[in-house]
């Protein structure tokens, strides 16, 4: 960023809660069905239809709120947000306004600036204020392509209308695009972790918006902020914020006014462009939804939800660092995915070697999983089997390169470690008497070299090692071979 300037960013994230049915009706929330299949009088906004709240929305909402450090409010109120758009059949969205489901959270995330090549510099903790997470229904989908006369018409699919969302709003606490980037990734991960949302940006069940303004360092008041939308991936969001920082600083320095407006990220041209200006900003006229009672949450419910919370990824990372002496980077990599973290812990415990467990999981296993597009929970190599392999390696029965080869084969065939090792003939000969026999034979057959070695030509030691290994077809344990040779020569 240009010297002397700072950026102020606030984030809004819409996360689809992982329910089977919509928030106020029993239509399925499934993705990818034929258009307008999963609709009913409630989500079509037909006259007389009445909303009834889905109990799972409360449960997933509570999990999400707790995972984000928010306080769950004992009473929250659904309100109507009024506006006209074809994807909103009722002419209002049922949302929450002055009494949200949860509020006043603080969340600590890990964040790092990146160098030119996108590599993280130094990871540091950062605490941000989360103002609220309220519950609301999603709108339908407007379609502008792939149907007749799209120059004259738009098309509406209401399958998504009424899907439950949690809208998570932060205070304007971010001071760089990478902080915002790390925040969104953090939210995505904890929502998946507690099972509150699939949080998949590609499927649109996690959408984010960034409010961005810049000001001179030392300036007290804020300049106009720009709302960035159409950020279809975390990377696009980060790029859009960077673009916006440059654009706004240039405008301020040229004495132009940065107007308060909504801009879209145009990924083809790598720039933001105006979607709507403040002139047609909405006046939503919120008022309490008369068809729904205020949502009451008991203390018992909150306590139970808290006690059912799993260990969150950051806590698990810190524990792995202290309990298993992993580096910050390795532990962070492992807790990127809950099933991988569970896989790791089982492997580390069963093998008794947390360090090697981390190495194999982060390199060989992760590579194989990525190639097969699988998660650790459906890995053909079980954590128990990987632990067996590590124990075999630690016992000196196979070497490191062989172990790596065995993992690949275990992954491909689904066979256990012992089977693959014997099939590949990798089992090392550690039986001292068997090796002694080979060594005796070699000493007998190489009298000249033995005499030369005993006469002081120590370089010949390697020759004997080579001969012994060759005679054992590479299976003799090199450490034992060395010991026996030294002894006998």
């Amino acid at each position, binding site marked *: 960023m240009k010297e002397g300037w700072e950026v102020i960013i606030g984030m809004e994230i819409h996360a689809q809660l992982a329910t089977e049915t919509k928030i106020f009706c*029993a239509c399925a929330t499934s993705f990818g069905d034929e258009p307008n299949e999963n609709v*009913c009088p409630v989500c079509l906004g037909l006259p007389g239809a009445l909303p009834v709240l889905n109990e799972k929305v409360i449960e997933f909402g509570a999990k999400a709120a707790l995972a984000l450090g928010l306080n769950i409010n004992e009473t929250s109120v659904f309100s109507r947000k009024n506006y006209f758009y074809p994807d909103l059949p009722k002419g209002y969205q049922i949302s929450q306004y002055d009494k949200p489901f949860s509020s006043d959270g603080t969340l600590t995330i890990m964040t790092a600036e990146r160098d030119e090549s996108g590599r993280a510099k130094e990871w540091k903790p950062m605490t941000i204020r989360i103002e609220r997470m309220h519950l609301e229904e999603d709108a339908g989908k407007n379609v502008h392509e792939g149907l*007749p006369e799209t120059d004259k*018409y*738009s098309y509406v699919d209401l399958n998504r209308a009424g899907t439950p969302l949690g809208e998570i709003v932060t205070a304007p606490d971010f001071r760089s695009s990478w902080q915002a980037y790390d925040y969104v990734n953090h939210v995505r991960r904890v929502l998946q972790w507690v099972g509150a949302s699939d949080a998949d940006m590609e499927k649109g069940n996690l959408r984010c918006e960034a409010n961005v303004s810049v000001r001179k360092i030392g300036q007290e008041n804020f300049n106009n902020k720009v709302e960035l939308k159409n950020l279809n991936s975390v990377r696009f969001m980060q790029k859009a914020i960077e673009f916006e920082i440059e654009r706004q600083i240039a405008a301020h320095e040229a004495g132009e006014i940065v107007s308060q407006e909504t801009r879209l990220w145009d990924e083809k041209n790598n720039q933001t462009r105006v979607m709507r200006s403040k002139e047609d900003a909405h006046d939503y006229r919120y008022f309490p939804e008369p068809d729904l009672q205020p949502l009451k949450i008991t203390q018992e419910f909150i306590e139970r939800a808290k006690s059912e919370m799993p260990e969150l990824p950051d806590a698990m990372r810190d524990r792995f660092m202290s309990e298993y002496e992993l580096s910050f980077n390795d532990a962070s990599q492992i807790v990127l995915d809950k099933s991988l973290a569970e896989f790791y812990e089982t492997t580390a415990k069963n093998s008794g070697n947390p360090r090697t467990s981390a190495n194999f999981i982060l390199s060989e296993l992760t590579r194989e999983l990525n190639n097969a597009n699988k998660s650790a929970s459906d890995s053909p190599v079980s954590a128990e089997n990987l632990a067996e392999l590590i124990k075999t390696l630690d016992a000196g029965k196979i070497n490191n390169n062989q172990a790596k080869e065995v993992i690949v084969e275990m992954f491909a065939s689904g066979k256990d470690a012992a089977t693959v090792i014997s099939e590949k003939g990798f089992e090392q000969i550690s039986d001292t008497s068997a090796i002694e026999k080979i060594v005796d034979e070699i000493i007998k057959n190489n009298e000249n070299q033995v005499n030369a070695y005993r006469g002081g030509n120590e370089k010949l030691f390697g020759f004997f090692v080579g001969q012994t290994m060759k005679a054992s077809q590479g299976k003799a344990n090199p450490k034992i071979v060395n010991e026996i040779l030294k002894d006998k020569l």
Partner: protein
Amino acid sequence: MDVRKVAKLAHLEITDAEVAMFEPQMASIVAYVEQLNELDTSNVEPMLGGLTAEGEKTETARVDVPHESLGQKSALKEAPSAVGGHFQVPKVL
């Protein structure tokens, strides 16, 4: 009362003559409702949801189990214009 603004928010087209007619009518409606301000409600909880204390006991949540939906054919039957399984509407942004 800004009648034009209210009309715009409600997506209604109104003529100047209608504005002249509605302005005093709406002002008198608001003045009528404003009588409520004469009451001291500082100790009264706002009633939300429209139910009495007894009625609130009927408050319920739904189990998260899908029911059959209307399906595309029924959903689009009453639409003024439907094409390719979609509601067809005038072009929006």
